[in-house]
């Protein structure tokens, strides 16, 4: 196939062969990362702007490193230090940046759909780096890649995702990436944070941690956002941790060769016990590693001949 996409806004409309194309490209990128000189000239003269309206260190850094490994110029624009605090609208901000002729905008925004909106109003390529509770496509792809590397396949695997499903854009992207590749997805958490409607997306929903973890090939823990505690989705952190935290005892129900994943940042001792986070079964740092390769792949694929096209 040939890559035709100009934007990566979400995985909802990604075909299986497109996901495979990205993963295949990421594999080649990963080889670059093993060299002494971890840089190739592919995106020389291209500019990527990280436009972040929400705090993020790891995703922004990952995109920044990915761009730099490909010799693109990467500029960071974070809302906290920008004109956004002076009342500028999203569109005005984007148009101002567009006037500086970047090739790719990597956008994170607290409102779902913000990157889609921008893609209709600016001429450069847009990568969604997380929009509200909607999608986080690069995370969905890097999770897919990490599981492929750990397990060799995704189809038929039981993958349990546990935690705040309701607010998680990671889950929504994973439903598309892992779901479409044939994984059996189980979603679990307090009933206030796991909408039953998620079953319509093809996942199984359970409020029983043991049922979710039993015979799982992959256990993916989500960060419990401490700030959400105020809204009383669950009585106390301690109770949450006891019911939905991953401990050795619960994890022992999973398959013997099961792996643990987490999109980070981890709350040690809340959703994941200290020793499991650092255990041999943990693939959490592999996810970070895969993330750079996958983001290199996305930047490379989007930075191609679109200039010639318009």
């Amino acid at each position, binding site marked *: 196939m*040939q*890559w*035709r996409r100009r934007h990566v806004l979400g995985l909802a409309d990604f075909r299986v062969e497109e996901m495979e*194309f990205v993963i*295949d*490209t990421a*594999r*080649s*990128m990963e*080889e*670059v990362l093993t*060299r*002494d*000189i971890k*840089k*190739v*000239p*592919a*995106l020389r*003269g*291209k500019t990527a702007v990280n436009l972040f309206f929400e705090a993020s260190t790891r995703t922004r850094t990952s995109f920044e490193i990915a761009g730099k490994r*490909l010799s693109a110029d990467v500029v960071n624009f974070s809302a906290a230090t920008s004109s956004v605090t002076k009342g500028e609208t999203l569109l005005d901000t984007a148009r101002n940046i567009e006037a500086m002729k970047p090739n790719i905008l990597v956008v994170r925004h607290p409102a779902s759909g913000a990157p889609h909106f921008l893609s209709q109003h600016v001429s450069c390529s847009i990568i969604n780096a997380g929009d509200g509770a909607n999608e986080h496509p690069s995370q969905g792809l890097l999770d897919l890649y990490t599981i492929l590397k750990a397990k060799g396949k995704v189809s038929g695997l039981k993958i349990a995702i546990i935690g705040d499903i309701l607010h998680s854009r990671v889950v929504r992207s994973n439903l598309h990436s892992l779901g479409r590749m044939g994984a059996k997805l189980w979603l679990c958490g307090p009933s206030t944070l796991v909408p039953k409607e998620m079953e319509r997306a093809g996942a199984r929903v359970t409020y029983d941690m043991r049922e979710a973890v039993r015979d799982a090939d992959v256990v993916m823990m989500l960060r419990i956002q401490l700030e959400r505690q105020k809204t009383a989705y669950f009585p106390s952190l301690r109770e949450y941790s006891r019911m939905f935290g991953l401990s050795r005892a619960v994890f022992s129900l999973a398959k013997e060769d099961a792996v643990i994943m987490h999109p980070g940042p981890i709350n040690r001792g809340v959703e994941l016990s200290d020793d499991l986070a650092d255990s041999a079964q943990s693939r959490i740092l592999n996810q970070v590693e895969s993330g750079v390769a996958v983001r290199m792949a996305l930047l*490379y*694929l989007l*930075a*191609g*001949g679109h*200039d*010639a*096209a318009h």
Partner: protein
Amino acid sequence: MKKPGKKVILDSKGMERVLSRLTHEILEKNKGAEDLALVGIWSGGVPLSKFIQEKIRAIEGVEVPAGFVDITLYRDDLSRAGYQPRLKRTEIPFSIDEKKVILVDDVLFTGRTIRAAMDALIDFGRPKNIQLAVLIDRGHRELPIRADYVGRNVPTSRSETVDVMVQGGREEWKVVLNEAAPARGE
């Protein structure tokens, strides 16, 4: 004017003879296989470098390290192509520092691929020198690059293409010259 058609320039036997001669030339010029390393350019150069590696083993009784390089990320026309080309693999599982690296490709044409491959190699280390072995030199250079070892010089017009077919088994290897196909404008 001749009718456009396909012409087999080398069959599998012919290719084997040419590659054997190239191997002898490489060994002669480098006075043996010491410090030699082979790097095939993906994809056409890879089976050829494997062949040369085997030949060196047969002649000198030594295993010369061999790898391959994909030059896509080093191309000078990336942003001009209509879409991004699929990446292939690069695998150089040995240090090229102080090695005499023989770059192997199937067809030498504009020289741009070789420029890209040399840039890629330099990112892997500092070889003692880089030498170039090609099966076919078809002319039309756009960069000041020449091969150290040439299997066959094949004068071509720009609109002709040369296909080195090395996908199947060795007995099916051949080199085909597609004579001036008018549909392919350059």
